[in-house]
């Protein structure tokens, strides 16, 4: 292959002083800076770029933009491997290594393309008919082969080492599309005083103007407006950036590709997703040219007429020298003229009987052969097109060719405008869909509104830019834009009727949907466009059917004898172009996946050998490595130490809320099921909150610091919910209560000293503190200062042992933790983790998250007595609903394992002895622990009240491990039922 043998000696928007080396399927080639991968491949004479999805047909390059259905490649290796990238959108970069897809063993010789063998299995509806009915089992047998045969590229399986970023941005006016309409809109909006973001997926601005000669009027217009835009510091030009979705609130999702100017810079993101919040949006997304449907219309060498012109004028590539241009409208003639001027032998086959005489005359002048009322009915050639069968008024004839330029008309790019529900509207004069009525903050201009002439696009863009800025209150006077008239003629066009004599005629190239598939769908009753789509997979490729949707509609309309608008249009959803999941995640992966909360003693725990556990967002010590070889050994040792000596636990994660105000006591009386108004100053009380529906919401302790001030704690998990709920009640239900509630969770380092020796340790740590039972009784409070920080000690127990919760200002947390450990050393004080904490509370029969699961009531949990005869608190009325009082409701019981060497498991389902272990059973085990006190496993369970008789047996079944174990129903308080350990 000659190096760049299809490149013209001059012209184009490529930088010939910067050659760029790349490879395709391992073969080294060269292009220039300013090339796309597609243009560089064409310059090197590559016509065969990929194999099709189902039939493995040879495919070339159809388009020059994001609508490309055929030329999909894979870039990169290992973790950087990214499949299904349209070569037409890839800015050529030094060392770029592209691979073709869906071929085996090689692109040129693909085993499965010797088909006819496979084809019958892959017609529309094949999957449904074969695998969804009674023969469903067959899927298991064939899946492997089918997946291997039909498919696109393969993603990498290793972690991607590259960086991705998500960014937030703001603008008054966002303009999607940097063609003549978008540029004109940007200029107008900026001049009116608006802050503008102009979004262009290409690495050059200009849109269709880039298909014009690089030294003509279009080029000077472009240069001028680009310079003008750069003179505004309020305009952000976002090139290499695709708008993939438009979302509520005028938020546009953008994905930006790194430029290929040099090697990646340190820390530079390969892709950046920007969430752009705009006050108004101008859509100037242009239009996509339609292919034509005839037999073998997918042969490499078939190209959209506008794309062929782009390759010629922008990239100085002449992909063919014997060119047939076939069209239903005027625009494609410009391709014919430019190719003729570049030295190609050109024939125009126009389906219309009488194209404009000016075009015909010009063709005659420059030696372009014109055949009117003529269409292509078949193409010949395998890996590259070699000839065409033309059918015209005088019958059929053969013509040799190496490039076929097709133009079946244009489809305005209405995808993005549809994302927020603006329904496309059919415009008869252009035989295409344009957006329906926009809301007040969105505008459209140019080809996407069906206004194809450049002069109209510039004018429409200008108007849209002025209006969009005015919507944002920016209405400085704006001068008229410079005019650009390319002398396009826009006359009526003819709907092409698909013809499919001979071979396959493709409607959707990427999904390999042919006219026969559409006919089949029609025959079998899948006429509605949404059915057609699902039945044939039309439009479901990575290209979202950008080139195929209208062709399919038009084919179905013809079959039904209906018009296109009667046949319908499909709903477009984000993303407009594929977006890598990694780009959407941005930097939020690995340790940045979510923010972690660390307690003030975090570093000490790590230094002291803690194995940490994520609990919600918090990092908490799970167990300490010196306590045992693994968590099971460690937690039992830590429990024993608490029961026999003392343990130190970091409880800083508890939700802490400051409640103040003249009505604070009244407020707490309403939000807690048990009363707080009579709680004496200096005392703490355990409290339970219900939801409005009478189900238990959360529990915790609240201490009365002063007549009008309380210190509330909540569970770690519900801290945020409780705060929000309290604020809700004050803002919406009882605004007359003068109460201020403030989260102080982060203010305090909190630690609990628990165990028989806790009092002695407290005395040793705070020598001046009176720790006697009289001065600091169970539920008592001490407040003072320690090392310049506020100190609160509340005598509260979770473990069932005598215990003190010590709160100190967060900045002094580490210091106090160390002080306690040191003071406690003679008393065997050791830190313990959440595994032991959970086990201790199970032994004591305290309920926690597994029991307060959003389904249980106070009575279910054995807490009904706390309420007594109170009323008028949140949840009181609905907790009395008859169903919540039914005798067979599941309620809290204790279980002890009565089989030697066996254990209980959380989640096990409970049955009566002799009962068939089937269904939901009579209840379930919620929490378990090995009890050093009892010497066997104990657990808490929710068990139907009518069978929950203490002393009787149940069978706990754990199907996940095929375990069945007998257990005895006992009191949930396994330890010290009289509470003697707490009070003394």
């Amino acid at each position, binding site marked *: 292959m000659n190096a760049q043998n299809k490149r013209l000696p001059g012209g184009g928007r490529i930088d010939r002083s910067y050659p760029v080396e790349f490879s395709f399927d391992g073969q080294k080639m060269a292009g220039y800076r300013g090339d796309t991968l597609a243009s560089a491949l064409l310059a090197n004479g590559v016509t065969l770029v990929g194999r099709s999805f189902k039939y493995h047909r040879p495919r070339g390059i159809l388009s020059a933009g994001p609508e490309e259905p055929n030329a999909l490649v894979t870039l990169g290796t290992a973790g950087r491997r990214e499949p299904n990238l349209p070569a037409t959108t890839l800015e050529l970069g030094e060392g770029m290594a592209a691979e073709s897809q869906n071929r085996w063993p090689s692109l040129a010789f693909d085993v499965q393309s010797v088909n006819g063998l496979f084809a019958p299995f892959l017609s529309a509806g094949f999957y449904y008919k074969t695998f969804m009915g009674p023969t469903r089992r067959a899927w298991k047998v064939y899946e492997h082969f089918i997946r291997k045969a039909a498919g696109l590229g393969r993603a990498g399986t290793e972690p991607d080492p590259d960086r991705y*970023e*998500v*960014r*937030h*941005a*703001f603008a008054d006016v966002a303009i999607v599309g940097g063609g003549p309409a978008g540029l004109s809109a940007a200029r107008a909006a900026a001049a009116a005083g608006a*802050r503008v973001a102009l979004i262009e997926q290409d690495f050059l601005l200009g849109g269709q103007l880039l298909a014009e000669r690089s030294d003509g009027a279009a080029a000077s217009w472009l240069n001028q407006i680009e310079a003008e835009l750069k003179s505004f510091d309020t305009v952000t030009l976002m090139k290499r950036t695709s708008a993939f979705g438009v979302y509520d609130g005028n938020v546009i999702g953008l994905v930006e590709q790194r430029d290929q100017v040099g090697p990646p*810079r*340190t*820390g*530079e993101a390969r892709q950046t997703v920007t*969430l752009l*919040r705009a006050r108004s949006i101008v859509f100037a997304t242009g239009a996509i040219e339609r292919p034509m449907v005839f037999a073998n219309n997918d042969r490499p060498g078939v190209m959209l007429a506008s794309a062929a012109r782009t390759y010629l004028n922008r990239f100085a590539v002449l992909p063919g020298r014997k060119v047939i241009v076939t069209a239903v409208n005027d625009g494609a003639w410009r391709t014919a003229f430019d190719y003729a001027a570049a030295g190609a032998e050109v024939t125009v086959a126009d389906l219309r009987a009488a194209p404009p005489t000016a075009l015909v005359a010009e063709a005659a002048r420059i030696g372009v052969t014109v055949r009117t009322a003529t269409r292509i009915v078949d193409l010949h050639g395998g890996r590259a097109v070699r000839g065409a069968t033309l059918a015209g008024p005088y019958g059929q004839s053969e013509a040799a060719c190496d490039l076929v330029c097709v133009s079946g008309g244009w489809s305005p790019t209405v995808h993005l405008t549809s994302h927020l529900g603006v329904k496309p509207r059919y415009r008869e004069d252009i035989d295409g869909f344009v957006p329906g009525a926009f809301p007040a903050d969105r505008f459209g201009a140019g080809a996407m509104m069906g206004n194809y002439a450049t002069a109209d696009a510039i004018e429409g863009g200008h108007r849209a830019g002025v209006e969009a800025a005015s919507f944002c209150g920016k209405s400085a006077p704006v001068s008229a834009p410079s005019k650009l008239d390319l002398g396009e003629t826009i006359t009526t066009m003819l709907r092409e009727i698909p013809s499919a004599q001979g071979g396959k005629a493709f409607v959707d190239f990427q999904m390999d949907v042919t006219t026969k598939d559409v006919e089949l769908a029609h025959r079998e009753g899948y006429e509605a466009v949404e059915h057609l789509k699902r039945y044939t997979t039309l439009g479901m490729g990575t290209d979202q059917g950008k080139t195929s949707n209208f062709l399919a509609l038009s084919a179905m309309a013809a079959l039904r004898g209906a018009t296109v608008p009667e046949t319908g249009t499909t709903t477009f959803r984000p993303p407009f172009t594929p977006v890598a999941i990694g780009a959407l995640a*941005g*930097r*939020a992966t690995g*340790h*940045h996946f*979510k*923010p*972690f*909360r*660390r*307690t*003030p003693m975090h570093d000490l725990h790590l230094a002291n050998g803690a194995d940490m556990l994520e609990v919600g967002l*918090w990092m908490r010590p799970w167990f300490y490595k010196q306590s045992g070889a693994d968590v099971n050994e460690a937690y039992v040792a830590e429990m024993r130490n608490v029961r026999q000596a003392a343990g130190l636990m970091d409880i*800083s994660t508890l939700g802490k809320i*400051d409640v*103040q*105000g*003249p009505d604070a006591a009244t407020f707490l009386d309403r939000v807690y099921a048990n009363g707080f108004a009579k709680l004496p100053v200096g005392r703490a009380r355990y409290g339970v909150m219900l939801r409005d529906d009478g189900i238990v919401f959360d529990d915790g302790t609240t201490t009365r610091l002063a007549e*009008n001030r309380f210190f509330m704690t909540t569970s770690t998990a519900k801290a945020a919910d409780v705060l929000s709920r309290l604020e809700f009640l004050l803002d919406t239900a009882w*605004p*007359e209560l*003068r109460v*201020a509630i*403030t989260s*102080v*969770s*982060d*203010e*305090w380092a909190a630690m609990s000293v628990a165990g028989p020796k806790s009092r002695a340790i407290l005395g040793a740590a705070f020598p001046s503190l009176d720790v006697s039972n009289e001065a600091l009784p169970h539920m008592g409070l001490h407040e003072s200062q320690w090392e310049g*920080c*506020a100190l609160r000690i509340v005598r509260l127990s979770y473990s069932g042992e005598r215990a003190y919760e010590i709160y100190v*200002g*967060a*900045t002094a947390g580490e210091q106090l933790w160390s002080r306690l450990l040191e003071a406690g050393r003679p008393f065997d004080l050791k830190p313990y983790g959440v595994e032991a904490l959970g086990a201790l509370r199970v032994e004591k029969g305290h309920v926690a998250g597994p029991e307060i699961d959003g389904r249980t009531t106070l009575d279910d949990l054995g807490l009904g007595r706390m309420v007594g005869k109170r009323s008028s608190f949140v949840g009181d009325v609905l907790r009395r609903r008859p169903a919540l009082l039914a005798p067979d409701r599941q309620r809290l019981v204790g279980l002890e394992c009565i089989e030697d060497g066996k254990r209980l498991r959380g989640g096990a389902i409970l049955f009566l002895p002799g009962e068939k272990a089937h269904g939901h059973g009579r209840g379930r085990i919620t929490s378990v622990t090995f009890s050093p006190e009892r010497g066997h496993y104990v657990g808490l369970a929710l068990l139907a009240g009518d069978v929950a008789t203490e002393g009787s047996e149940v069978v706990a079944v754990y199907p996940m491990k095929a375990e069945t174990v007998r257990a005895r129903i006992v009191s949930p308080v396994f330890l010290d039922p009289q509470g003697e350990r707490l009070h003394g």
Partner: protein
Amino acid sequence: MASPDFSLSVADCPLIQVEGWDGMLGQFESSLSAALGTKLPASVGETVRHKNFVIIRVAPRRLWLALDDGTQGSSLAIDPDLGCSVCLGEGRMRFSLAGADIASILSTCIAVDWHAPTTAPGRAVQTSFHHVPVLLIRTSETSCDLVAPRSFARSLQDWLADG
């Protein structure tokens, strides 16, 4: 980004929160204003700098007094019939960010328009940084403070350092 023009320092952030009761706000504010010897920010997002603290209105009836680093936080005596105060002297950290690239770095952290009037120097904005509530105090064209909960501070600092 290679060697961005950006610096970050982290310090404790003593705060005092005061809140007036609904229905008593006028009296509460005049009494507070007299006690502090300065006017109060009129609306949420405004700040008033006075002596060694900044007063920020964080909610219609709630103000924060952010004390300069090194100042001892304490509570403020408020007439209990007018409102209350709570010392938030320990629970937050203050990130001081500065440099020409600050806007670009912050754009990967918070969804706040650096160029909007509501973010102008002297303004304060409460928003979400990686799902964490933070208070941004714009100190100049190219600098700001972020006040963040202490428990989240290291995660947010790591995120900023990676920016």
